[in-house]
């Protein structure tokens, strides 16, 4: 039975940490993006 817990934990941590990382990145991107005009952004 402990198998299920560990497997769920593995998947949960993997997906969860990636989601958190993504959210933090997007949040920071939005904050920074507001204060810099588009012409300065090299990818646009």
């Amino acid at each position: 039975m402990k198998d299920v817990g560990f497997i769920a934990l593995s998947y949960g941590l993997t997906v969860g940490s990636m989601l958190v990382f993504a959210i933090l990145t997007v949040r920071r991107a939005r904050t920074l993006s507001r204060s810099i005009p588009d012409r300065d952004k090299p990818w646009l």
Partner: protein
Amino acid sequence: MTTITTNSSRSTGTRATRVLGVVAIVLMTWVVVSGLFVTPADAVQLDSVRIMYVHVPSAWIAYLAFITTGIASGISVVRRHRSLGFDRVAGASAEVGVLFMAITLVTGSLWGRLTWGTFWQWDPRLTTTAFLFVTYVGYLAIRRLDATPQQRARRSSILALLAVLEIPLVHFSVVLWRSLHQEASVLNTDGDVRLDGLMLFTLFSGVLAFSAAFAWFVIHRQRVAALDDLRLTSGLDAALVERRAEAVTQ
């Protein structure tokens, strides 16, 4: 100094990265569903083999991130032009790499607990990954020091290139060291899994999914770093302008 300009896009995304993001999410969902429910349990390892579907791709991508940081740092050192851009890629790749290394170590540890009963094995791959993890934490710490982008680029590039030298040495030392304990380790980390078609396919999808996620992460973090540097220099510029204005009025 946060002026909100009217012609600013909301984020660091472009159409290409949105497509990439969607692809990554779709693939990941497939991997999770397939890994947890669709694929059969292994004959020897039973259900614990399911952890492999996230552990193995994560390990591969962690090493990919390491190689990316190394190459980007190498280019950053050699090419004067664009060296800051490559340094940012190196830094972004390292940040993402640390994430995947942590995932690799944790999932590997959980898998080990299920399969052998211990959370940790001193086998070469796990041990080297642990050392790699610490090396990268140190690399990120160096990057965080107060410095101009140029100084940061120079220092961290050298550190990254030294890491490329050091990691194979560490790996070789650990391999040599553990080979002397042959009698103790009968099981290898892969656990002798015979993969059937669906399991192999899920593993392969996992590698694709994690690669897409890796690319998405690195692109966005690199752009965030570029914005950060821009804000730093434009802040300096604005301060200079103000100072000159002061000087004129005095």
